[in-house]
């Protein structure tokens, strides 16, 4: 408990404190929050200047907005790819089901960085996909896929796909087959059954999976840094540059605090949804 207090809670207090100070060329590179004035009085010099700066510079606002956009689009794609997989696994019979589940989890255990790196070899101008398409004669000119937002979407969908599939699977596997039979007995086509019975019942799984993809995607740094172009703006990357290149610790802290709020809000919403569901059961 003490460990968590010291190394998890206190850091946020420090973070908040530094976000209120001014950048200085000194060690540490931020101003003190209070100091003793010439007459011996304690003076508090905290300011919201950094936050005002975030609002006034369109770079930051745009970065937050485009992070949210990229995370949202990737979440939708992950859902489209992950749902059929989860559904298929949930409907498989036992030995095959375990094997398929293991196959979903296995990439999650292999290095995140290396999985993103693998896509660099795929998407490059002289990469595997372009070579394949050129040889098949589908395209004449290599497609530009690296360093685009498209590559970032692929990277996020790819690395977070297990997070989407596992909650969906856990939800779909509990689905009562009798309901589906009843629907088809009453004359519903498979497609109608899916949209009127399966999909609404799997909504909790969809929400949980989407949150697990959306939240980490917002703060993503590695994927846009490796696959994205120079104009792929994501807030994790801005924070990183602000910290390591500009060395402006107070602004980086303010960026982090605003991002924290962005992340905490959906998490709390998810928690509320879950509590409501548990109460209903």
């Amino acid at each position, binding site marked *: *408990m003490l*460990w*968590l207090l010291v*190394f*998890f*809670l206190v*850091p*946020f207090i*420090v*973070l908040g404190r530094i976000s209120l100070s001014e950048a200085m060329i000194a060690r540490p590179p931020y101003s003190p929050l209070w100091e003793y004035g010439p007459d011996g009085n304690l003076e508090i010099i905290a300011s919201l200047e950094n936050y005002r700066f975030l609002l006034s510079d369109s770079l930051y606002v745009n970065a937050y907005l485009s992070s949210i956009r990229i995370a949202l689009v990737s979440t939708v794609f992950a859902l489209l*790819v*992950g749902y*059929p*997989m989860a*559904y*298929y696994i949930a409907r498989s019979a036992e030995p095959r089901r375990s094997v398929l589940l293991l*196959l979903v*989890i*296995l*990439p999650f*255990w*292999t*290095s*995140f*960085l*290396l999985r993103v*790196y*693998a*896509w*660099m*070899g*795929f998407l*490059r101008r*002289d990469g*595997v996909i372009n*070579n394949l398409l050129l040889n098949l004669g589908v395209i004449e000119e290599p497609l530009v896929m690296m360093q685009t937002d498209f590559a970032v979407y692929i990277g996020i969908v*790819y690395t977070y*796909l297990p997070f989407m599939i596992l909650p969906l699977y856990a939800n779909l596997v509990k689905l009562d087959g009798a309901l589906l039979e009843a629907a088809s007995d009453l004359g519903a086509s*498979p497609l109608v*059954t*899916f949209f009127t019975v399966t999909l609404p019942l799997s909504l909790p799984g969809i929400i949980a999976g989407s*949150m697990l993809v959306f*939240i*980490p995607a*917002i*703060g*993503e*740094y*590695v994927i846009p840094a*490796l696959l994205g172009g120079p104009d792929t703006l994501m807030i994790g990357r801005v*924070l*990183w540059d602000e*910290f390591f290149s500009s060395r402006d610790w107070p602004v*980086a*802290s303010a960026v*982090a605090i605003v*991002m*924290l709020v962005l*992340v905490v809000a959906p*998490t709390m919403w998810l928690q509320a949804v879950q509590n409501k569901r548990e109460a209903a059961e």
Partner: protein
Amino acid sequence: MKRGWTLPILALAGFVFLYAPIVSLVVFSFNESQLVTVWGGFSTKWYGELFRDPQILNAGWISLQIATASATFATVLGTLAAFVLTRFGAFSGKLLLTGMVTAPLVMPEVITGLSLLLLFVAMELTFGWPAGRGLTTVIIAHTTFCMAFVAVIAQSRLRDMDESLEEAARDLGAGPVRVFFDITLPVIAPALVSGWLLAFTLSLDDLVIASFVSGPGASTLPMVIFSKVRLGVSPDVNALATIIIAIVAFAVVVAGLLLRRSAAQNPQ
């Protein structure tokens, strides 16, 4: 949907999507050509190159040390947190502890990394410890974010276990410490092993947090790989990736077999 072909085809496409990049990575690690994406014949020369690169070997050794230490600390602390949360009933601060245990699971890594670094700097200025940054700070940071994962795994196992065993031991006169070590710990041991393995891989894999909190001379393997691949694809990274993937796949299969065997021995 039941007999249709749509679903299996979509699912199959999904699995191809999951595995194609990894497979191509492994295939091209045996490529003779300097160009990563043009096949120039079979060769294992990149593996040899890898084992002559002191930077990579050194970073790999550092990463292993960090991962072993933080996985061990995270397992001990995570188990304690899980035990407190499942066995102590309601207590003041439980909500806070639950929040702190689950928050690192969803916290963006850039925030965790930045805030921990700022804490270390502030601590150094106030108490003089940790002096500078290096292995210690990375181990502390990794322990903190890994213990959340261990705690979640241990918690679900503790919830599932039959509490009458503990009650029986207590009725027979065992103290709480004895009950924990003689009954609870052996029962939840498989969960702790998988928790330790998960923490170990998470620590080995982490780039962002380590970049923030490590000091000069403590570059982990992901940090070295990242700085290499940022400049473009390089064939020796393919070889390194293949080795890591092989080790992980082997470990996962062994862990899976162990878990299945222990599940078969005491069906619950």
